[in-house]
């Protein structure tokens, strides 16, 4: 690491995170004074973005090679009052909470009090959503049956494709012009709407070009006043880059990186989409530029690495937007889920690993930053040494990169109706979500609490916590003679709640389509221009909405225990079990012991695994292919991020012996500590799920460091991964840490400030996690080496 990078890295790591009022202030001015009610909503939104990008402060650090900040300075995080409005209390919580604070200045609080809150109260998307939801949705939401992704952030979950490396914004403007001319005002009843949409895209293109030009101006200005000739040259060169992109198609590696970065800042300034935005297939998109520059002799490997490091710093400068309400108290991460994809196959289906792949892995190892997150796509065509290179980084205990199965992703995409080429250019974004990069709007709608629905089934539709009859009356479980009767009742409840969720999400999609178009994101998402439709209206080539199942391991173990103990072996009556659940197993160790005898998911045992398969089939069947509001369909994926902790908190004792309030299993991993037959047995169990029918599954495996120590261990891990992927497993990630280390870190956090662990689809500082999450990670089974 050279001194430039060292300097930038230290600054980005040490800089305090603050809430910036800049954006909120600018958009309030815009909607107060500049906007004309004659403009259509899409055009208003585009002009609003333009207003922000033309007036926000330009920040350039003298050390930087890639420029552009969302806030007035690094780690100053803007707010999005048109989506959700922070109250003064929220700001106070953000400022004062011990873990992961966002500092709020007195000035910001004052502006919020006097200007932002009075203007936006009653006008936010969040308020529109809650007002539009029916009582049963609200009751289910409050009971913790599901969460709602769109209540604080705009729809996102998308990654950039290859379009921007082939076209500059001026080229896109020419395309827009073409489509504008082709609008048929005689036959097309949506002609006017289409015109407004295309105009909004055109304005958004101008807005980002203007933003880049402002950087070019500033850099030229600095160059003029610079005495140091080397620095002067550097400013001039950067100014030239900013003058060229995004207006023109990039020609060099530097231009391609800067182009992407302006776009990234633009998209996360326009709104606060989930997962920020993502450069997608990093080594595929950037390799042609890298290769050409190296061959021309205009770039060295070292210079390329320096640019990449600068690029990495930019992501780290941008923490996730701060939450509001209860989530502000509980949400504990700055991570915003940008996931760099490396490896996989090329669009013509060849080994995609190239020189830039390895160089980027070097950067990931050396930078060791939580953002951006990184992953490797492993195809059967990729060489083992690629996996081993990644494993050596994983072995350093930083949770990155995670490991994905390219061959499974391609099959998932094709099964979901994507073209073969689009499938090969696909990848995973966020935690583990597969998508056709640059061509798909694939939004997550919310986590779905599978075990809670069992609790409600066992109470004949009543939620024992909120004391509301939110479910259907499917019968008193004491009257069920067979396991099948019980399972049917669960199915009925599941269907009931999925209906509520989907109905709500369809309404929310229509609210966003109508009130919150995103012209800039649409501009770079294929086929929005062609369809003259916004990203949030279904303009993209593919439109998928996901429901994320949570607690697969827990629900499988619960049904296994019920089947084994109540029906098959008749060890315990339903009446006694329900009574014990009510009392949270108090003083009933013998019963807990009995419950523990039931077969458990994660041990390659068909008794439990077959139950899991059945649950999967039912959940998949009830959701998949149901239409959403954007012309696409609903699908499922299986991940929990940190939601298994929240869902566990609001769920009582369960038949697998889990006590009230304890976190559920996470992702598709077995219940913490229930897997006792080693990693091959876990992988076998987990692979019994039909991964290809999902849009992503998340498996966490905790290994002790000796698992990674020598060549032989690494080679075995390569085979372990290959075998899992042969069984169509979607993803696996590794925590390499001992329990002893984690316990010490809990006791002496001051000595473990740098300890990073894999949480779910992302890594985080262990000491920043809530105690509940820390405990959950410690309880996961750690595989040792034999």
């Amino acid at each position, binding site marked *: 690491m050279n001194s430039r990078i060292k300097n930038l890295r230290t600054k980005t790591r040490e800089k305090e995170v603050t809430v910036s009022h800049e954006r909120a202030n600018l958009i309030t001015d815009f909607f107060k004074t500049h906007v004309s009610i004659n403009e259509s909503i899409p055009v208003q939104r585009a002009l609003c973005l333009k207003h922000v990008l033309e007036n926000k402060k330009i920040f350039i650090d003298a050390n930087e090679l890639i420029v552009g900040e969302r806030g007035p300075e690094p780690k100053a995080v803007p707010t999005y009052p048109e989506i959700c409005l922070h109250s003064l209390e929220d700001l106070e919580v953000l400022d004062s909470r011990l873990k992961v604070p966002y500092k709020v200045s007195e000035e910001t609080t004052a502006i919020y009090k006097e200007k932002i809150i009075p203007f936006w109260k009653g006008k936010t998307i969040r308020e529109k959503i809650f007002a539009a939801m029916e009582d049963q949705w609200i009751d289910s939401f409050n009971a913790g049956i599901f969460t709602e992704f769109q209540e604080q952030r705009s729809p996102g979950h998308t990654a950039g494709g290859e379009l921007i490396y082939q076209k500059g914004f001026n080229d896109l403007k020419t395309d827009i012009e073409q489509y504008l001319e082709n609008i048929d005002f005689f036959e097309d009843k949506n002609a006017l709407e289409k015109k407004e949409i295309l105009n909004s895209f055109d304005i958004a293109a101008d807005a980002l070009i203007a933003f880049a030009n402002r950087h070019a101006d500033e850099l030229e200005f600095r160059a003029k006043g610079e005495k140091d000739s080397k620095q002067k040259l550097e400013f001039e060169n950067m100014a030239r880059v900013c003058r060229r992109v995004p207006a023109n198609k990039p020609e060099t590696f530097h231009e391609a990186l800067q182009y992407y970065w302006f776009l990234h800042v633009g998209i996360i300034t326009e709104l606060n989409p989930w997962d920020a935005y993502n450069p997608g297939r990093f080594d595929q998109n950037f390799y042609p530029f890298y290769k050409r520059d190296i061959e021309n002799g205009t770039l060295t490997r070292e210079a390329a690495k320096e640019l990449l490091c600068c690029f990495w710093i930019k992501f780290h400068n941008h923490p996730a937007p701060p939450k509001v309400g209860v989530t502000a108290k509980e949400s504990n991460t700055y991570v915003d889920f940008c996931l760099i994809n490396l490896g996989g196959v090329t669009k013509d289906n060849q080994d995609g690993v190239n020189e830039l792949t390895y160089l980027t892995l070097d950067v990931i190892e050396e930078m060791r930053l939580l953002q951006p997150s990184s992953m490797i796509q492993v195809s059967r065509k990729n060489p083992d040494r690629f996996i081993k290179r990644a494993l050596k980084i994983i072995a350093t205990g930083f949770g990155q990169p995670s490991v994905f199965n390219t061959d499974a992703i391609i099959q998932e995409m094709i099964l979901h109706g994507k073209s073969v080429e689009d499938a090969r250019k696909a990848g995973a974004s966020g935690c583990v979500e597969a998508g056709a990069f640059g061509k798909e709007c694939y939004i997550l709608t919310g986590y779905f609490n599978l075990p809670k629905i069992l609790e409600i089934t066992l109470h004949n539709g009543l939620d024992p916590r909120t004391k509301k009859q939110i479910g259907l009356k499917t019968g008193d479980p004491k009257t069920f003679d067979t396991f099948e009767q019980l399972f049917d009742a669960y199915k009925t409840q599941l269907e009931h709640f999925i209906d509520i969720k989907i109905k709500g999400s369809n309404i929310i999609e229509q609210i966003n389509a109508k009130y919150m178009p995103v012209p800039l994101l649409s501009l770079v998402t294929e086929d929005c221009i062609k369809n003259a439709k916004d990203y949030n209206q279904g303009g993209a080539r593919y439109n998928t909405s996901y429901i994320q199942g949570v607690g697969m391991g827990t629900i499988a173990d619960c049904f296994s225990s019920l089947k084994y103990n109540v029906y098959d072996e008749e060890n315990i009556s339903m009446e006694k079990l329900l009574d014990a659940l009510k009392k949270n197993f108090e003083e009933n160790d013998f019963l807990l012991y009995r419950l523990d005898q039931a077969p458990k998911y994660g*041990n*390659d045992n068909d008794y439990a695994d077959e139950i899991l398969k059945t649950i999967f089939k039912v959940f998949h069947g009830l959701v998949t292919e149901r239409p959403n509001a954007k012309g696409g369909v609903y699908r499922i994926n299986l991940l929990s991020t940190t939601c298994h902790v929240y869902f566990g908190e609001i769920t009582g004792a369960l038949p697998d012996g889990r006590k009230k309030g304890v976190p559920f299993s996470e992702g598709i991993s077995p219940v913490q500590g229930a897997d*006792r*037959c*080693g*990693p*091959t*047995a876990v992988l*076998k169990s987990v692979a019994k799920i039909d991964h290809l029918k999902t849009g992503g599954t998340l498996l966490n495996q905790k290994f002790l460091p000796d698992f990674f120590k*020598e060549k*032989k*261990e690494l*080679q*075995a891990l390569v*085979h*372990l991964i*290959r*075998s899992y992927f*042969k*069984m169509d497993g979607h993803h696996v990630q590794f925590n390499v840490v001992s329990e002893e280390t984690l316990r010490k870190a809990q006791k002496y956090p001051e000595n473990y400030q740098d300890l990073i662990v894999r949480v779910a689809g992302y890594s985080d500082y262990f000491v920043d996690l809530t105690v509940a999450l820390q405990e959950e990670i410690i309880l996961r089974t750690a*595989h040792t*080496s*034999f």
Partner: protein
Amino acid sequence: MLENSYVFKIQRYSIHDGPGIRTTLFFQGCPLSCHWCHNPESQAKPLKTNGEDMDRVAAGLMEEIEKDLIFYDDSGGGVTFSGGEPLCQPQLLFRLLDQCREKEIHTCVDTSGYGDAKILLKVAKKVDLILYDIKLIDEKAHKQYTGKSVARVLDNLKQLSNQTAAVRLRFPLIPEMTDKDENIDRIIVFLKEDTIYRDIHILPFHRAGEGKYQSLSMKNYMEGIQPPSKKKVLNVKEQFESSGFSVTIGG
């Protein structure tokens, strides 16, 4: 997991008991009682069970073995019969070896070499790789640290050397017991004069079995003994190599 009185433990994802990813079956019962034994619970003979059907026992174990086929195939792994001493249960061992061969599963037998020569030679015909321990060459020391005479171990190895079976020799490097220069020199001489083997795997002592002794109320001779230093391991490696051996550290 289907463990029984014949096999006290089944370990999946074993990567130090032969090539690739393996499932190791630990047989109950061992005639030796090595001071450094990692599996002291395996030393007692298996409980007598009245007329249990060996075919059925083998079938149950095969089911467990076959669970990880996909991992064996990818990594060039298979199953390892260890212990205890697998040669002590020839009826079960032969059945398992035959069935694995029929199903094309790679097999290793991990043996102390202390067993009936006839059984060993029969195993040699059925197995893909024999992992054979050579610990101490001095009769007195062998008796002291393992409880039995060394003659049989050496003689069996000589006989094996006349067969075609693949053998991987393993030398447990135990501080203060097997690590003396003289012991190593004499092992080298024996191997060169009486066998065809010129490869050896050094297995440095580790303390994995430590906790077991207390719970079994057995005397732990290794108390306070530290694993050999890296330098010591490299010295021993060098000692073998300078006599023309090819050396690997670890299983």
